[in-house]
């Protein structure tokens, strides 16, 4: 029987389908990221909108290298085109948008699974010894982490982009001919992918019984037939165009960065409103359909280049869409003084009501004032959007390689302490350890910088940024890949990790060995070597000092010192090839991996345990969230990338309007103090503890791991335990 179906019902249907897909993904181990996990089915990464392919689907790439890899622009372009041309059609009649992506091309094309894509012919073993010594996550071969200006696509459409490629190919010939071949294949593949969906939507519409969904499919067919070549004209078309681009980009190499969605969709929204062809409910529905396909890294509520508030109805509609869907999302509210206060109120209300770890909050002022310290104008800083887990980017104009290069402070400290203790000099001092730590940190930054240069030198020959290149300024024009120098700005992110572990270790030795003289250097050496075996008292003595995050302690001072010296070293010079680096403190979700190979540390941490999370104090170090905020605000690197505060709090702190108002004041005060980014988990302790024992009982429970949110049940045992530890030790 034919019946009406509302937008809300359709959203609920979409959420249900997503939950089913997530179940299949967990079962089949799709999208597994963590190489530290022993749980093969764990997702352990952003819950991006990837959907499971049909089980009988088969596809084989055509490698062009003896290692089995697919390398270089021609091979990447042709193979990706082939994948797009063979990609199963995915249409959910409840959705207003066609398509769904099912693969990670960059992982398929990689001969060594679970590692960064790399061609072994490009040997960087000359860096390996130091990279391993200092626990550096080098980022060589890691893709994307900068992002597109979607307006280029909105203006040209796929036909226009293809014409642009062919124009410059001819103009620049023979320069960049392989690169252009790759780009052309990508566009042709995408056009084929879209076209097949237009045809399928038309076919499905003929058999769809529900009149609302039938109309939806007819409209879907019309729009997609148009978008194969033409640029979008309406809000619905623009959202669909964006979805195709972002899905192509996600599937190619994981780029799922949305950017300032309330800004780039606004002209379409305004135009449709003026014509009377769009209601807010419809607009919200299209956004919900988009979030199902790509759920992460959208900025709302920013400013224009003159600092005026850009908050508009789309900012609210996106929040509402996420609220109705109740899926993991990462929506960043850029907080500033000129902002419509209702947006922050709405965001905080949803944060506490949905408990999905989203939205998150970034400080417009602190990111901008930091970025201009690199020598840029405030107008440019205002165009730099918050887009990844902790980083920012000027859409289409800046290559950042952010969140990929990490220096493990704990490894550097470990190397230092061992060196000092084995030096044969009996007169050790904490000052001496500090001096050597600074020396080794300098060496670690040097080797990280060389790795960045190596990536920029060769990545384009291995796995070029072919999809992002389409919507950047300079790549097509110059025939050069974005990873190889085509863009206007190169500001490479270099992050430190494990700040609290090292700050607490310095303070513990200072207090217990030098000041109180309860322990000798030899005892420290011995308990660390023996991993605190039969020395639980000593371990607790070291652990229970006033740690980083307690406020006004020596460990707090060490936290500031470590961050300052790291910032100073990173900013002291560019990479050997002259690229600017921007420091941050953030370990993403690598705490477990980064601690896995390091022995016991003087802060009471056992060998192989995770290091502390990014810029956060260890759980239990702070007596309140204000103490946490003050600590993390005090160690900001301050050059335009963030050192986030990850907050895990009880729902009671925001269960009514009044307490939500106080939380808003808390956010603003954190930013007044210098904070840049706030990620918040609203965690019901009882529920999490039960879910840890019985994950399958809570398939919908969403947690914010770090820069991303995901399903708790989809995490590996180790990662679930990390979340649980945070809660237990904080209470």
């Amino acid at each position: 029987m034919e019946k009406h179906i509302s937008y809300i019902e359709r959203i609920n249907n979409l959420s249900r389908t997503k939950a089913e897909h997530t179940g299949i993904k967990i079962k089949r181990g799709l999208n597994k990221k963590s190489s530290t996990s022993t749980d093969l089915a764990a997702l352990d990464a952003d819950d991006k909108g990837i959907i499971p392919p049909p089980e009988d689907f088969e596809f084989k790439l055509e490698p062009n290298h003896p290692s089995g890899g697919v390398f270089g622009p021609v091979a990447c372009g042709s193979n990706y085109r082939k994948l797009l041309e063979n990609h199963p059609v995915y249409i959910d009649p409840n959705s207003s948008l066609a398509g769904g992506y099912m693969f990670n091309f960059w992982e398929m094309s990689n001969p060594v699974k679970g590692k960064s894509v790399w061609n072994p012919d490009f040997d960087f073993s000359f860096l390996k010894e130091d990279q391993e010594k200092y626990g550096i996550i080098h980022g060589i071969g890691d893709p994307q982490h900068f992002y597109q200006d979607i307006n280029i696509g909105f203006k040209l459409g796929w036909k226009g982009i293809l014409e642009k490629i062919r124009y410059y190919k001819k103009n620049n010939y023979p320069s960049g001919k392989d690169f252009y071949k790759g780009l052309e294949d990508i566009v042709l593949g995408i056009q084929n992918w879209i076209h097949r969906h237009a045809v399928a939507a038309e076919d499905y519409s003929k058999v769809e019984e529900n009149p609302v969904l039938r109309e939806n499919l007819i409209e879907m067919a019309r729009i997609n037939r148009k978008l194969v070549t033409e640029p979008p004209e309406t809000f619905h078309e623009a959202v669909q165009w964006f979805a195709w681009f972002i899905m192509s980009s996600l599937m190619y190499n994981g780029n799922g960065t949305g950017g300032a969605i309330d800004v780039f969709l606004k002209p379409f929204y305004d135009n449709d409103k003026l014509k009377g062809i769009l209601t807010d409910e419809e607009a919200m529905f299209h956004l919900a359909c988009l979030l199902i396909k790509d759920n992460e890294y959208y900025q709302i509520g920013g400013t224009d280049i003159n600092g005026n508030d850009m908050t508009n109805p789309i900012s609210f509609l996106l929040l509402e869409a996420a609220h109705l869907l109740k899926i993991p999302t990462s929506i960043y509210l850029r907080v500033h003084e000129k902002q419509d206060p209702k947006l922050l109120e709405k965001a905080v209300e949803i944060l506490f009501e949905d408990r999905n770890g989203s939205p998150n909050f970034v400080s417009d002022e602190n990111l901008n004032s930091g970025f201009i310290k690199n020598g840029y104008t405030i107008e440019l800083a205002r165009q730099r959007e918050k887009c990844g887990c902790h980083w920012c980017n000027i859409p289409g104009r800046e290559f950042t390689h952010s969140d990929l290069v990490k220096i493990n402070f704990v490894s550097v400290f470990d190397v230092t302490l061992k060196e000092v203790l084995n030096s044969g000099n009996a007169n050790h001092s904490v000052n001496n350890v500090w001096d050597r730590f600074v020396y080794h940190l300098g060496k670690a930054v040097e080797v990280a910088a060389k790795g960045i240069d190596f990536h920029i030198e060769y990545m384009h020959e291995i796995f070029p940024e072919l999809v992002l290149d389409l919507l950047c300024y300079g790549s097509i024009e110059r025939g050069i890949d974005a990873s190889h120098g085509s863009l206007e700005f190169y500001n490479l992110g270099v992050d430190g990790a494990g700040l609290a572990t090292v700050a607490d270790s310095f303070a513990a030795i200072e207090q217990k060995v030098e000041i109180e003289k309860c322990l000798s250097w030899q005892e420290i050496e011995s308990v660390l070597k023996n991993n605190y075996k039969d020395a639980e008292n000593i371990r607790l003595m070291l652990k229970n000092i006033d740690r980083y995050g307690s406020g006004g302690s020596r460990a707090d001072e060490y936290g500031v010192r470590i961050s300052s010296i790291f910032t100073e070293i990173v900013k002291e010079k560019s990479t050997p090839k002259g690229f600017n680096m921007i420091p941050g403190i953030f370990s993403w979700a690598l705490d477990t991996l980064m601690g896995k190979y390091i022995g016991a540390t003087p802060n009471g941490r056992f060998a192989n345990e995770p290091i502390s999370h990014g810029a956060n104090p260890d759980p239990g170090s702070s007596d309140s969230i204000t103490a946490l905020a003050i600590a993390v605000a005090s160690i900001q690197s301050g050059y335009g990338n963030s050192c986030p505060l990850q907050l895990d709090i009880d729902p009671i702190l925001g269960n009514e309007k009044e307490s939500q108002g106080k939380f808003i004041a808390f956010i603003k005060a954190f930013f007044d103090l210098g904070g840049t980014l706030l990620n918040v988990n609203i965690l019901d302790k009882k529920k999490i503890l039960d879910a840890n024992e019985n994950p399958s009982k809570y398939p919908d429970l969403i947690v914010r791991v770090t820069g991303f949110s995901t399903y708790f049940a989809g995490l590996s045992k180790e990662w679930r335990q990390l979340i649980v530890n945070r809660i237990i030790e904080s209470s």
Partner: protein
Amino acid sequence: MSQVSGNIFSIQRYSIHDGPGIRTTVFFKGCPLHCFWCHNPESQKSEQEIQVVDFRCIECGLCIKNCPNDARKIVDDKILILKDKCKLCMKCVSVCMSKATEVVGREYTVEELIKKIITDVPFYKRSRGGVTFSGGEPLIQIEFLLECLKECKKNNIHTALDTSGYGTWSKFEKILNFTDLFLYDIKTLDNKKHKKATGVSNKIILENLNRISERNAKIHIRIPLIPNFNDTSKDMEEIANYLKKIKGIELVELLNFHQLGYGKYKNLQRQYLAENLKPIKDERIKELSEIFIKNKFNIKTR
């Protein structure tokens, strides 16, 4: 700054239920009342105490070995403090690395305390919050309280006093000019019941309430709702009728009984007289709050 010091048993930052905005609540040790439902048993005695937090204990036995008075013993698998023998020398506290044995109550100078309070000024500013002195009963450390209030006002920090109202008028007189808000407890108007439940008469409490009101104090009335003690409509109607005559009351808060203090009684090896009481049901709280709404009070329940 004044050299007077005070005994504080807890400092709670980001306190959002003890007055407006984000606050730091400072808990003074010592209370003249002994309410049988008290959820802060560590607040009652003025002197320092030792408590044992079971789940932190690593069973190293150092507290037993190091106690010069034989006051630490294992009884039924638990390390207890034999209170008749303990001379509060704190030796067991200093050797405990796991923080299972802890001192309750720490002496703070005004300067030390103000330093702590000032740390969160950015949060007070954004939220129009401040500091709340609570307890125990802060008035029993009046000189210390007064100096702290004065220093807060010097630093433009909003001050609130969470009080049982039980203290001589001269104490109120001293602090009135430095206290921006009173969080004033009323338990029952029935003096007999009050005496039985808290150990003191409510006469002086009600008198003080009238007098601070006459001096234009801003007041939030707090009523702990205790099952089988003051949870009848009659109790609340009496209170509402009484409060109607008092000016300056900006808010009436009904605070439901809870069991969160139970573990603290265990840590202090004390018996909890309200162990078997259950919180009052939401619907009943709503009914009782209607009495105040009817009498045109702003009401909040928790």
